[in-house]
């Protein structure tokens, strides 16, 4: 069981951390939330029945956990976003400029739009899986994704497509 968990952790830690990072906009919050998600996974691993893929099951735990985090404190959400933007500005010289522009643009998107971009493009979930994860119809997934892409284009302006 412990060995299984370690394997699962090693395989999915980046996925959960990346999701949490873009969801909260803060590496500190992402670290704490990812740790909490893996504790939940550890406790509930026996309950996994294989009704969905393990990847979807883990991400479902992560999305639920992130949602309850945001419902716990709206103040923390705002705080973490400010920190994140400061962080990006501080590290400007260390990163490739265009990459930073894209990261900033992503952070400027609405939370729901950013979430769908992360799930679809970064984590490779299908429309159907995202529909299950977020509890919304597939049609809404598609339209939200298109809207997110359009908004990202607008924010990036001339940098889009470079």
């Amino acid at each position, binding site marked *: 069981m412990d060995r299984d*968990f370690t394997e699962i*952790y090693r395989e999915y*830690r*980046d996925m*959960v*951390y*990346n999701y949490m*990072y*873009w969801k909260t906009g803060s*590496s500190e919050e*992402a*670290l704490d939330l*990812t*740790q909490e998600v*893996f*504790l939940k996974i*550890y*406790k509930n691993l026996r309950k996994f029945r294989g009704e969905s893929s393990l990847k979807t099951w883990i991400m479902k735990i992560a999305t639920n956990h992130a949602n309850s985090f945001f419902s716990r404190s709206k103040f923390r959400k705002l705080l973490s976003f400010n920190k994140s933007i400061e962080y990006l500005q501080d590290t400007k010289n260390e990163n490739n400029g265009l*990459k930073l522009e*894209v*990261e900033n643009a*992503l952070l400027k998107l609405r939370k729901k739009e950013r979430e769908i*971009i992360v799930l679809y*493009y*970064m984590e490779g979930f299908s429309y159907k899986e995202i529909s299950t994860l977020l509890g919304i119809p597939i049609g809404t997934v598609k339209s939200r994704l298109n809207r997110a*892409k359009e908004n990202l284009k607008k924010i990036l302006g001339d940098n*889009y*497509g*470079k």
Partner: protein
Amino acid sequence: MENKEFFENLKKIRKQAPPELDEKVFNALNKQRKRLWLLTPVFATMILLFIFVYLTKMTQNDELMAVTYIVELRQPEEYGIYSGEVPLDLEIIPKSLYSYTILENGDTLDSGEFQGLLQDTMVLTTGYHRITIKLKNYSTGEEQTVERVFFGL
């Protein structure tokens, strides 16, 4: 760069979990395991054993504890002979909640419950009165019968 390619390249800004996450997760897991240990069957058995030993000891103590039954008719007797309606007292030491049934020569007179001191009255007519008080201790379930003989005038 085409749109599709641009969005596929978003993977490049995918965040990698920092190395401190490993330490954080496994430290938290170790704490969790310690807490879970408290809920293991071995621990549960130990707790049950402790409760069993504790209860056994308490029961044994109860058995060793002397129980005194004092039954008296609160009216000065003259050569052990009573007359008319007289108060009947039954005191049990140590105090506990009891149910009782009073019988006179085998016929039920009264019943109820009391704690420590039972106060009742009875009419003693001429002759022999065998007063039987059946008691049941609610906390231990123990049953006891106390019997006294009085003569009425």
